[in-house]
């Protein structure tokens, strides 16, 4: 195999002093540092780089510009790696994608011959009859689909994302972009210049080589940019998309940088478009800019003997360039409005056969190009086959025209229109602060590209200064740079329009004929432009084909939406560093050290109980018993804790909660239920009053923030003079409860704990262990109990002191699961478990919590109508004491006459009552005392329960008396 390196060039990206060794399909190759996978393989004479998606046709390099998606590879830790732009590194092991066996002997290569049976949209027309066979076909088709293969052993690299701020972001480091960056810097703007290539220069490092003035200009621009303190440069950096408010994420090898710019210059250039002719996909057929990139960036000759199709001045320059680079030009065919004979002078002088008015009509070869057929074409591009001529060659190079890399401008709200002079779409409208420049803007000569960059910077600077923005001074070229019809359909097909998706000319025509005759439907039916390169080399030609088919103009035909990403980007880069908010209570460490079985609960982690998971039921039961007979302690620091101060405090709470709070006496608390406008229960907690103008309230853990937000909004909405302070994180809280709780607490506080001094539902500020704390005598679990709220910094000390003081009395810490059983024994609901997204307080059997006497509160207008209209109701039920009988689970259904009549919302075997108890939401007529309920348990087994009305445990609340005999023996 020939080693196809040319002589060292001045701008090349490779470092010829450093070699790297890599393996492709098991064969070792040598390359230079700076090579890409494709350039390295080409240099080694390997032209067959991949197999196509559908027909498994042999494919090679096409663009060398990050849309060679027929040359994708799998490496040890990645797949769908683009060979045209991915550097080779030492010891890299590269395999092709989507082949079975080796590339050369791919077992699916015969599919190519079946092409006629697989036209566009074929899968809509077959395989569905008979129905039972479809899964077979589906498996077959799915296996064929897809490109690379993932490896489940890959682990994510989660790197932090970074942020970038600048006045002006310039995307594209070619002549226009470089000049725009300089222009913006001169206007004292802070500039960030990004380019997807590893080096700045854009087309300057491969396309202007035959222009004697270019190297000096390039050096001048590069030096000026490097010297400017106002310009930061990022290379190998892809601007992924343009999002609202000038937010442009940039993907770099080190991860993503999210750039916020005040203004953006898009000097993103153009994307060369292929010519369509039979076998235009053979390895060895490539676009002129690709051949030039290979030559000047990597020192690789794409071929030795080439046939070129030229449709624009750039093509003639490229031809001359390749000739000087050592390629023998067997023939140059040139046609269309972009061709002027003068441009070919150098070639003609050098004796290259140039055929004006001719085009390539077919390439030949088996696995690689071996010849091309050229023929004269008429003004409409139709070839005259009678004069066709076949020429041997090992390369077919085309320069058919350009499409704007206008994706970001489009996303920024810019509009494009097809320019019939230039024969390409150009921007016609854009926001003042997002400005196109350079070739994307239809500006072609080196000098005018620089002018255009300078003008763009000037207009942007004016816009950013708030001044008037001058009319876009047009540097646009006034001649064609493309053929309007780079398409020579072949009766036998294989004239590919979309190489990602293996779509031929006839596929598009067929789609249009079948009625998919607008761009969007055509795209969706044929999948043109939907492959990994997202239509970068296929959309424009497809639209041309459709426009011609419909006999209408390009603008009338329209385009599809250019969606992000500009180039695909890895999930791990998008994900960035893994950050999960995490909160710890002041006694978090203690739980871990004392066997707490921790469960996540929102951002918190709370003990379910203290013991082994395997013993959960016994442990919970013993914790329950400890609370009922002795004393227990639970960390409730996750509760929302909110202070409300000011003359309108009472009004705020009266308006926000269903119960009256304005008539609460200072030193007392009251249950607090919150509903929304529709009367649905949102949250519950406790409101306490400290003074006329001072309340303190709690909310459930998951609604702490929501309650705070609601109250602050109401304060504003109702024009109230009140301050709402969220102390949730600043205060810790615990609940010390059980008949012996007073005895544990008493020695540690400076207040009287008698029923008279601190009654049930009382609240007082006090010193606990000498530290400030707030005591609330509330009893969710149904025993005498004290909620102690204290600053997070002192909470752990208080906790320890209580544990010490309680030790002689057998104090037990208890967890959330235990608390759930305890509250169930007491019949208290848990909002969100015993209620759902539509439950109102009447359905929750809490009419007592709705004070309709108040003229207004949130939810009152609705609740006034809903009262008495409930169709379902929360009930308590009990089951037989038999401990061997299976228990229904939460969410098991209540069944009556074969229909659903309710569901269990809470259930437990009550250690205290010695039988299963629960809550269920049932049809209203089942909500009568003594009503038998049939619950469908696991395995469909029907289980009997009975509705009861009494509170299961201590219905009269006698156990919550601080002066009861067992409390103070």
């Amino acid at each position, binding site marked *: 195999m020939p080693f196809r390196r040319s002589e060292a060039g001045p701008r090349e990206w490779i470092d010829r002093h450093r070699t790297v060794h890599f393996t492709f399909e098991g064969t070792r190759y040598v390359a230079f540092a700076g090579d890409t996978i494709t350039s390295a393989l080409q240099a080694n004479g390997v032209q067959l780089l991949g197999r196509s998606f559908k027909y498994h046709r042999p494919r090679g390099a096409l663009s060398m510009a990050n849309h060679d998606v027929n040359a994708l590879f799998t490496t040890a830790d990645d*797949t769908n790696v683009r060979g045209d732009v991915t550097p080779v590194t030492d010891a890299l092991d590269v395999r092709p994608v989507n082949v079975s066996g080796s590339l050369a002997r791919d077992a699916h290569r015969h599919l190519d011959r079946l092409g*006629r*049976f*697989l036209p*566009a949209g*074929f*899968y*809509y*027309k*077959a395989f*569905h*009859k008979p*129905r039972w066979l*479809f899964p077979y076909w*589906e498996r077959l088709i799915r296996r064929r*689909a*897809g*490109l690379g293969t*993932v*490896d489940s052993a*890959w682990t*994510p690299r*989660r790197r932090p994302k970074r942020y970038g701020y600048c006045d002006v972001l310039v995307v594209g480091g070619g002549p226009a972009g470089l000049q725009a960056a300089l222009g913006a810097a001169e206007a004292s703007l802070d500039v960030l210049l990004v380019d997807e290539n590893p080096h700045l220069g854009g087309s300057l490092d491969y396309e202007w080589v035959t222009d004697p003035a270019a190297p000096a200009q390039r050096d001048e621009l590069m030096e000026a940019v490097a010297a400017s303190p106002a310009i930061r440069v990022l290379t190998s950096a892809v601007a992924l998309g343009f*999002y609202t408010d000038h*937010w442009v*994420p940039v993907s770099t090898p080190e991860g993503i940088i999210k750039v916020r710019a005040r203004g953006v210059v898009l000097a993103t250039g153009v994307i060369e478009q292929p010519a369509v002719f039979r076998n235009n996909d053979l390895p060895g057929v490539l676009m002129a800019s690709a051949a030039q990139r290979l030559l000047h960036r990597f020192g690789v000759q794409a071929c030795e003997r080439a046939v070129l199709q030229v449709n624009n001045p750039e093509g003639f320059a490229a031809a001359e360039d390749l000739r000087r680079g050592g390629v023998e030009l067997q023939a140059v065919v040139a046609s269309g409005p972009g061709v002027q004979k003068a441009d070919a002078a150098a070639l003609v002088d050098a004796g290259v056969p140039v055929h004006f008015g001719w085009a390539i009509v077919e390439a030949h070869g088996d696995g690689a190009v071996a010849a091309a057929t050229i023929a004269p074409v008429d003004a409409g591009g139709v070839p005259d086959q009678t004069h066709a001529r076949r020429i041997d060659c090992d390369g077919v190079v085309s320069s058919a025209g350009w499409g704007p890399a206008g994706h970001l401008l489009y996303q920024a709200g810019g509009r494009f229109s097809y320019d019939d002079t230039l024969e390409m779409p150009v921007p016609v409208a854009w926001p003042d602060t997002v400005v196109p420049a350079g070739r994307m803007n239809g500006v072609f000569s080196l000098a005018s590209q620089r002018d255009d960059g300078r003008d763009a910077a000037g207009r942007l600077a004016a816009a950013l200064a708030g001044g008037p923005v001058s009319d876009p001074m047009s540097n646009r070229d006034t001649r064609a740079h493309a053929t309007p019809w780079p398409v020579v359909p072949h009766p036998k097909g294989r004239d590919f329009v979309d190489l990602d998706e293996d779509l031929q000319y*006839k596929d598009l025509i*067929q789609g249009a004929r079948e*009625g*998919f005759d607008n761009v*969007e*439907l055509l795209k*969706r039916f044929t999948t043109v432009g939907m492959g*990994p390169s997202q239509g970068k080399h296929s959309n424009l030609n497809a639209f041309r084909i459709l426009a011609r088919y419909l006999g209408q103009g390009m603008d009338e035909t329209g385009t599809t*939406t250019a*969606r*992000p*990403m500009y180039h*695909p*980007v*890895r*999930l*791990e880069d*998008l*994900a960035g560093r*893994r950050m999960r908010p995490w909160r710890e209570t002041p006694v978090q460490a203690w739980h871990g050290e004392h066997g707490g079985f921790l*469960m*996540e609960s929102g951002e918190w982690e709370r003990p379910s109980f203290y013991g082994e998971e395997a013993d959960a039921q016994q442990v919970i039961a013993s914790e329950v018993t400890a609370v009922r007979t002795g004393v227990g302690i639970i960390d409730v620091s996750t509760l929302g804790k909110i202070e409300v101060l000011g003359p309108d405090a009472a009004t705020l709470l009266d308006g926000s909660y269903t119960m009256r709070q304005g008539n609460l006496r200072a030193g007392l608390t009251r249950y607090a239920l919150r509903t929304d406008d*529709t009367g649905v229960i949102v949250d519950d907690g406790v409101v306490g009053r400290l003074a006329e103008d001072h309340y303190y309230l709690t909310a459930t853990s998951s609604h702490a923030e929501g309650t705070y937000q609601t109250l602050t909004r109401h304060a504003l909405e109702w024009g109230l003079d009140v301050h709402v302070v969220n102390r949730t994180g600043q205060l810790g809280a615990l609940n010390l409860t059980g008949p012996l709780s007073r005895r544990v607490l008493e020695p540690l506080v400076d207040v009287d704990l008698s029923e008279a001094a601190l009654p049930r539902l009382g609240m007082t500020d006090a010193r606990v262990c000498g530290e400030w704390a707030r005591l609330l005598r509330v009893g969710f679990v149904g025993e005498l109990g004290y909620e102690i709220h204290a600053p997070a910094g002192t909470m752990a000390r208080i906790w320890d002191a209580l544990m010490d003081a309680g030790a002689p009395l057998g104090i037990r810490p208890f967890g959330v699961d235990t608390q759930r059983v305890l509250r169930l024994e007491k019949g208290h609901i848990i909002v969100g478990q015993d209620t*759902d*997204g*539509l439950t109102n307080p009447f359905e929750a059997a809490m009419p007592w919590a709705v004070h309709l006497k108040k003229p207004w509160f949130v939810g009152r207008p609705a609740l006034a109508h809903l009262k008495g*209209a409930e169709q379902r109701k929360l009930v308590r039920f009990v089951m037989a004491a038999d401990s061997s009988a299976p228990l229904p689970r*939460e*969410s098991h*259904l209540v*069944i009556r006459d074969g229909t*659903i009549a309710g*569901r269990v919302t809470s259930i437990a075997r009550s250690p205290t009552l010695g039988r299963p108890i629960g809550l269920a939401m049932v049809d209203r007529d089942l909500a009568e005392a003594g009503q038998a309920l049939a619950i*469908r348990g696991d395995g469909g087994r029907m289980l009997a329960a009975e509705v009861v009305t009494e509170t299961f445990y201590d219905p009269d609340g006698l156990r919550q008396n601080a002066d009861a005999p067992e409390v103070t023996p």
Partner: protein
Amino acid sequence: MPWRLLKIGLRGAHKEPRFFPEPADLRDSYDVVIIGGGGHGLACAYYLATRHGIRNVAVLEQGYIGGGNTGRNTTIVRSNYLTPDGVRFYDASVRMFQRLSQELDINLFYSTRGHYTLAHSDEAMRTMRWRAEVNRHLDVDSQVVDRDAVGRGIPGLDLDCGGSQPVMGALYHAPGAVVRHDAVAWGYARAATNNGVEVHQKTRVTGMQVENGRVCGVATDRGNIRCGAVVSMVAGSTPRITEMAGLSTPIEIFPLQACVTEPVKPFLDTIVVSGSLHVYVSQSSRGELVMGASVDPAVLHSTRSSFEFVEGLADRIVDLFPFTARLRINRQWAGMSDMTPDFAPIMGTTPVSGFYLDAGWGTWGFKATPISGSTMADTVANNRNHELIEPFRFDRFADFQLVGEKGAASVGH
């Protein structure tokens, strides 16, 4: 090789008949005007023509058929809803979908994959059990599976989710499927037009004529049309149409986004949804991972994409399937979701006589395409709500009779 493809190949593809007839002129009167050429509108037209003999029907589509949410959705079809009303309705749709390729003679690639809704908390497990119980009661195949079974059913899933919110179990719904969305629209469009319906693309309804509480025509950018019945099936544009009819509704429009990766060989057979992580994923028959999340946080009538959507999504997907870290997002897009307070649709007759509404499809309406089309056709033909859609009636809000699908619909699609 299936016979059909042999035939196409042997006689040359160009002789395939047109899918849709050449566009006709807009007439000045139809019996029924359907606004919206999405799946719902086209299905309704098809069933009006085939089941009720009402063929003098025009479907008016402002863009191209299927170009709304029908062509933007992530195509999950399932019936594991929470309320009996919802389960019955969607189950009927799933059953229709299962035979739709044959009925419409187009391969919709209806691919039954199995659908996991992961539970990462006790609370979520309770909801999964609730859904499973209701589903099974109505003969819908759903079951709660434990953590180990999830691990076996979804190879490659990290049950610990990267270290927080570990998977505790899941609701497994065997009939869960994905479909080629465009094909659904095309299949209905072809079948409807074959039965005499006119489908007018690039025809936008700009106003509605209502006289004495009765609809009598619509205005379009191609002229006025008289008609006896107007059916609005415009998903994300619903409030604009109901405003023309002088009706208030609870519908608010929120963007809903989605994205796909580059295609890779199949590794994920099932559909995986995590309500707690707010993401879901399936692998298309082309090999792309199709992924989505919850609606955007604020009302917006726009299909713009946001970067924070892909960032948030990637963050969670990589937790679920760590090795997908190397897969690349190729394309993202958005649709406009017509959200309702109870996550159930609004269907049927309205206070304006002759004006029928099919809306409130939010993030979940693609799966309802066949059943919505057929029940709405029945409703229009008989001018009373079909029994399956009665729970979703327009005035349920006025009566505080909401449906309560939030628990099953939010990120489930």
